[in-house]
Every structure is written in structure tokens, then in C-alpha cells.
């Protein structure tokens, strides 16, 4: 520890303002604060401060993503070998997936953090931990076959135009991870949809369509020629974006987030509620297979669970008022299923619904704040 501190201390003078390597100050600072909580003390206000900071809070989200990540790695390998008709053991499937997924994670972090550091340097801020989470979310919501250069371009677009132009973490309107996904979807649709993108190095004869794509085509939620049972949907061994398929892994993440209080249970619950309500409405007026899908099975398929736990709950792009969170989550879930079922071109709606609600969150907050103001005015009138 002393040894690392000594190295950091010996580098420090060279990156200070006016020194030769000042351009690397933010990078130094990010490393320094990663290894050591800085020695800054309180100056004004409360003399003592809570033991938890942004780093720890963000780190909890990364931990919560680990089950989905590990499952996604295994599933990548499993799908690949299954399409070839080979039986392999868990470790082989996992190793194959690891080698496929790890490069995406590395590219995502390298590009995103690189841009963050440059902007932090320009602004004279510390590097914010926001991309800590985004950088892990992005690999989990793309198809495994996404070319790395596409990931790099999309991450750069999302971080610069989705976040940094607004002022960085805490100021952004839309979730950078979702924006990355949306950019990929609209810029390179052929790599983001269809039957061939979800399974790495798939055998041509094997149908790699996601269950949702089968539903859009008017079939039951099929995979490998058989109907997926609810239990199989829970486990998640079917094609999809890397981290989205296993509802069980996502539930473990949700438990971590809710237990630590990092994510808002109000948003999560109301998102699920909104999805169920829309699903039930479709069930009532069902005219095709997609509308007939039981409402609760919607929650197990596609990106709904992942969106409910990790995406809609992003505190920066969600509504900031407690009342607003109920409204925000509910409509998010409602629209997700609406788009999913009604949109003929694209079998999934979670991404678009969350983007849409991100943009509406300030408006919802505006009305909640207005009602607080009105209450106060009314109180003044009653007293007068």
C-alpha cells in the first residue's frame, strides 16, 4: 500500500498545473482516487461525512450485473455449440463466450473511459464513475456478433452526444447505454436484427431467431423448433442480447440493487406493473399470437427484465421526484409492451420505451414540482 502511495506521490508533481504532464492530470487523478480515498477534509458545513461515496454506489451496480454477465458468457458458447449440433460441458461453453464477450467489454470501457478522461481534463473535474456502469451495461445489451468497430463508434457517439455535451454524468437526458444500443440499431440495422446476429458463428441451417422474432412472425415463442416453457424463459438459454436472456440472473442483480437501495424499487415495480397491464389489455383483445402471449410471459422474454432492473432505474435519467417515479416506471412498462407487440418492423420495444420515457422524465418532474408549489401556495392562502 505504502509502495503504491509512494509511486502515486512521486508522479503527482509532474501532472500538476503548470507541470510538463498536466494533460494527464485527470488520468492520474482517476488512478489515484481508485487506489486511495483522497485525504481531503471537510471545509464548510457538516464536519463529518457518510462513509459511502459515488464510487462505492456505482460499484454495487457493476456487482449486480455480474450474474447476467456470467450467464451471458456461458449462453454465448452454449448457443454457438448448439447451433453446430455439438454437446459441450459448461466450462467449454463459458470459455468460448468469454473470448467472444471480453473484447466487447474492453472496447466499451476503453473508448468510453478515454472520452470521459479527456472531457474531465478539459473541464477540470474529477472523472465521474458513471461510465463504470454504462461500460458494463453496453456489452450486455448488444448481440454477440456486433463488430467491435461498431461498438466503438456507438459508444463514442453516446458518450459525447448523449452525455458529455450536456455536462457529464448527472446532467444527461438519456441513458448513454440505451443510446448506444439505439445508435447501433438505427445506424447498422442489419447487424442488430434478423436471425443471424444473435448467435456467434452460427451454423447456417440453424434458426437463430429470438423468441420475440418468432412471435412477431406469428408463431409461438419458439426456439430450436420447440415451444419455450416459462421455466426455460426464466433460465434464458435462448438467443438474445448477451445479458438480457436470463431472468434468473437478472433477478439476482435486482435483489442486490433493491437490498442496498441503490435502485429505486418504485421505478422497478411500476415498470413491471405497466408491462403487465399492457400485456393484459392485449390478452383481452388478442387477434394474433403475440397478443395472446400471457402478460406475465412478456416479463420473461426479450429485454424487459433487464430494462426493468438496470435501465429504467438509472437515477439520472429517471424522474427525480418520488411521485414521479411511479408515473415514469408505469408508462415505461406500458409503452415497452405496446411497441413490442404493435410495431411490425421490430420485435422489441423496451429500448425505445425507455428512451421515450427518459425524454419525458423532466416533464413528469415538472408537474410533480408544480403540485408541490401549488400545495404551498394553497397553505399560504388558507393561513392568510
Amino acid at each position, binding site marked *: 500500500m505504502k509502495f503504491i502511495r509512494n509511486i502515486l506521490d512521486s508522479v503527482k508533481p509532474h501532472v500538476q498545473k503548470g507541470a510538463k504532464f498536466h494533460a494527464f492530470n485527470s488520468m492520474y487523478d482517476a488512478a489515484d482516487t481508485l487506489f486511495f480515498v483522497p485525504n481531503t477534509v471537510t471545509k464548510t458545513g457538516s464536519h463529518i461525512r457518510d462513509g459511502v461515496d459515488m464510487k462505492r454506489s456505482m460499484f454495487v451496480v457493476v456487482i449486480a450485473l455480474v450474474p447476467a454477465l456470467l450467464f451471458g458468457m456461458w449462453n454465448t458458447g452454449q448457443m454457438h455449440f448448439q447451433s453446430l449440433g455439438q454437446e459441450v460441458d459448461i466450462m467449454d461453453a463459458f470459455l468460448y463466450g468469454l473470448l467472444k464477450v471480453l473484447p466487447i467489454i474492453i472496447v466499451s470501457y476503453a473508448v468510453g473511459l478515454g472520452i470521459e478522461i479527456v472531457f474531465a481534463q478539459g473541464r477540470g473535474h474529477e472523472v465521474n464513475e458513471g461510465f463504470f456502469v454504462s461500460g458494463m451495461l453496453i456489452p450486455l445489451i448488444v448481440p454477440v456478433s456486433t463488430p467491435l468497430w461498431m461498438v466503438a463508434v456507438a459508444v463514442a457517439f453516446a458518450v459525447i452526444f448523449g452525455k458529455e455535451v450536456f455536462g457529464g454524468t448527472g446532467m444527461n437526458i438519456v441513458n448513454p447505454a440505451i443510446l448506444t444500443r439505439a445508435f447501433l440499431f438505427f445506424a447498422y440495422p442489419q447487424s442488430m436484427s434478423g436471425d443471424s446476429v444473435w448467435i456467434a458463428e452460427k451454423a447456417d441451417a440453424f434458426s437463430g431467431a429470438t423468441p420475440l422474432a418468432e412471435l412477431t412472425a406469428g408463431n409461438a415463442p419458439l426456439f430450436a423448433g420447440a415451444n419455450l416453457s416459462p421455466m426455460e424463459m426464466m433460465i434464458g438459454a435462448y438467443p438474445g442480447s448477451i445479458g438480457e436472456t436470463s431472468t434468473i440472473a437478472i433477478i439476482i442483480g435486482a435483489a442486490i440493487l433493491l437490498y442496498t437501495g441503490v435502485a429505486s424499487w418504485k421505478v422497478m415495480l411500476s415498470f413491471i406493473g405497466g408491462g403487465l397491464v399492457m400485456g393484459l389489455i392485449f390478452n383481452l383483445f388478442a387477434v394474433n399470437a403475440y397478443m395472446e402471449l400471457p402478460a406475465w410471459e412478456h416479463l420473461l422474454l426479450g429485454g424487459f427484465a433487464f430494462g426493468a432492473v438496470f435501465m429504467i432505474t438509472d437515477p439520472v435519467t429517471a424522474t427525480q421526484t418520488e411521485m414521479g417515479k411511479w408515473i415514469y416506471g408505469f408508462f415505461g412498462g406500458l409503452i415497452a409492451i405496446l411497441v413490442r407487440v404493435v410495431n411490425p418492423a421490430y420485435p422489441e420495444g423496451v429500448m425505445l420505451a425507455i428512451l421515450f420515457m427518459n425524454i419525458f422524465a423532466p416533464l413528469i418532474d415538472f408537474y410533480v414540482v408544480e403540485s408541490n408549489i401549488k400545495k*404551498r401556495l394553497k397553505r399560504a392562502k388558507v393561513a392568510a
Partner: protein
Amino acid sequence: MSKQIKIKKGLDLKLVGTAEKSSKSLNLKNYALKPTDFHGLFPKLMVRVGDKVKAGSPIFFDKYRDNIIFTSPVSGTITDVIRGAKRKMLEIRIESDGTDSYETFKQADPKSLKKEEIIEELLKSGVWPLIRQRPYTVIANPVDQPKAIFISGFDTAPLAADIDFILEGKEKEFQTGLDALSMISDSNIHLNLGPDSKAPALLNAKGVEINNFSGPHPAGNVGIQIHHISPINKGDIVWTVNAADVLTIGRLFLEGKYNAEKMIALCGSEVKEPQYITVKSGVEIGSIVKDQLKQDHVRIISGNVFTGTRIDRSGYLSYYSKEITVIPEGDVYEFFGWLVPSPKKHSFYRTAFSWLMPNKSYKPNTNMNGGERAFVFTGALEQVFPMDILPIQLMKAIMAEDIDLMEQLGIYELDEEDFALCEYISTSKIDMQELIRKGLDMMRIEMS
């Protein structure tokens, strides 16, 4: 009509170093009046270095409200006037001559006096500044008619001085002080008691409305109590007095002199024998703590850990403080401190593990425990902020200097201290009390 109010939101923080319920009197030599203890004050000096003063002799007054004067807590000599940048007056130092000679004021039962006479005595003796007003938390204006006077009879802050202990055996002074206060305004006095309040002075107080509060900190903050009983709307004025300061007001009329004695708690993890001491207002802290420190690298705070003022070892007790708290400084690097779960650190959040031990007493230092960030996580501040006010939205309005929005979101009801707990738990490490004060100052300039 008395009210029972249960505060649900908040956080009780237990720290090491609670003051023992034993008290000793200290007669010390050096005192100072600090104009910086009073928000929005422009001091005009009335004495020169070398002048002899008695306890109760005028020292300076407020340039914009010249009837508000500040008087010496002891008899002695003016030894120094310390000024800071732009000649801002920081301290007027007084050396006690040990004789305790007093200026004389009217000695009478306040009930037998007229309102104007009481106000006159309070102003002349320099006791008036003990009465403050909301909004803005500045010294009350004697010509105002407040809609209520609030006195908090308990303090929930960490290591706070126990008001029951301070008031023990002082029923007469307390009641006389209350009588004086009830004479100077036509409105109600709300005396708010905690669940454990037991001092006879509080329980048997006459001529006041007694309300019972319970719940975690900040239930003892007078601002929270006002919010739940008689919230401040635009144009309203509420006066507040510390319960311990009511004694000073009472003694003025009982003894006919400005007796600046007060009992304070000497507390905190770095104090050898945490205890209560009786001193005079504005006493030099160095001579109190010099044999009491466990180590040298400490922060001395006049007041409590949330809202107090940082004081040098050669500094002086602040005017409204009821405690001297000493905690370790935290200017150390901590290896992976953000990641390693340390049982020594307290946290409001479940991402650390201190919630598993709710009864543990902590020894926090002054480290920020992280770097400053933008507001990211939402919903936490609301859990420790028992007011129907949107804290983040209000702070953003202040940052944007949007006066209208600040007013609409209820800034009149607030004081910095009401945000202290939010500031403590903030993962963004934003200095919120400073921000709220900035907003209040902006508002006050706008409204004047």
C-alpha cells in the same frame, strides 16, 4: 392547543464521547465577541483597544439596525480587534479583570413591565441577539410582529448538550425568561419537548403551548418543528430562541444584569473527560481544551459535528453554540477505502455494513470520504428530510439563482442546519449548507 407530532424521517447518529452529566465552573481570562456569528450583520465598533468595559457594556452595534447592540460578557479591557480581508471585523477580544462588575439594568418581574420596556431592556443589555427570526435565521427585528415564537426543548444532534441537564434547578430563570418573551409579542410561544424531556422547567412551563415531538434527528431542530406546527409562508416571521438562552433572558430581569454564563458540553471522541462546563459566552476555547485532548491532530468545533463552526485552538466559543466537539482530523489517504467495508465508518446506506449495528457508537474523522460529484442518486435525501419540501429541486433552483423558484419551493422555512443531515449522507459530497445559506442570502437581499 398542544400537539403530538411523530417525525418518521431522519437519522440518529451515535458518536463516541458523550458528555458526562457532571459540571464544573471555569473562570477564564480571555473572551471575544465574533460579529461573524451573526448572518447579515454589519458591525460598527463602539469601543477602542484599551477601553475598560463592564459586563453588559456595549461593544458594537449593527450599522443597519442601530438599536441592536452587542455587549461584553465580562468586565475587563478590550485587548484587540482582529480584522480579516477588506478590514472585515472578525473578533473583538476582551481580557477579563476577574472582578465581575456589571452594568445595571432594570430588575423587575417582566409581567409588571410594559412590552416596550422589556424590549428596551433586552436591546440595551445586549441580550436581544439571542432572539432570531425565520426566514433567513438572522437576529429578530424588534419592530416586527412574529406569528409565533418557537423554542426547541430538546436536541437530537449527535453529542448535543442535554437541555434537561442544562435547565436542571433553573426553573425560576427559565420561567422568567418565558414570561419576558410572552410579553414582547402577542403571539403564541411554542415550547417543543422531546420524548424524554424531563426537566421540571420544561414540563411545568407556564404561558406557553407545549408540543410533544418524537422521532430521529432532526426532530429537535426548531425549523422542523416550525414546519410541522406553523409553517412559514411568504411574509410570515417566526422568532426562535434556544432553550438554554431563555435562562440568560430570565436572569436579566431577575438579577438586573447581563449574566453571560452558560453551560456547555465538552464532548467528542478526542476529549479525555467529556463533561459539562459552565463558562461565559465567547470564552477562549484553547484554555478549556488544553489538558483535555487525547492527541494533537484534531478538529475543534464550536457546536455539533453537523452544524458547528471550525475553531482554531486559539479561537473562541461561538455565540449560539451549546457544545465544543473535538474529533480527529481525517487528512489521510485510505487504500481502497471506497471498496473495503470498514466497520469504523458509519453510513446511512446499505451498500456499507454499518446498518447491521444500529447501536454502535462511531468515531468519525473529518475526511470527505470521496470526491465531489453531480447529483446522481435520488430518493435518499428525502429519507432524512422530514419536511414537505423537495430538497434536490430546491438546491438546483439555488444553483441556478432562480429567486422565484426558490421562493415557490419553500426556502423561507429553511435554515442551513435543516440540510445538515442531507449533506452528511450525500454520495455526491456536495456542500449543501453553504448552498442553502447562499440561497437565503440572495433571498434576503432580494426582499429588502
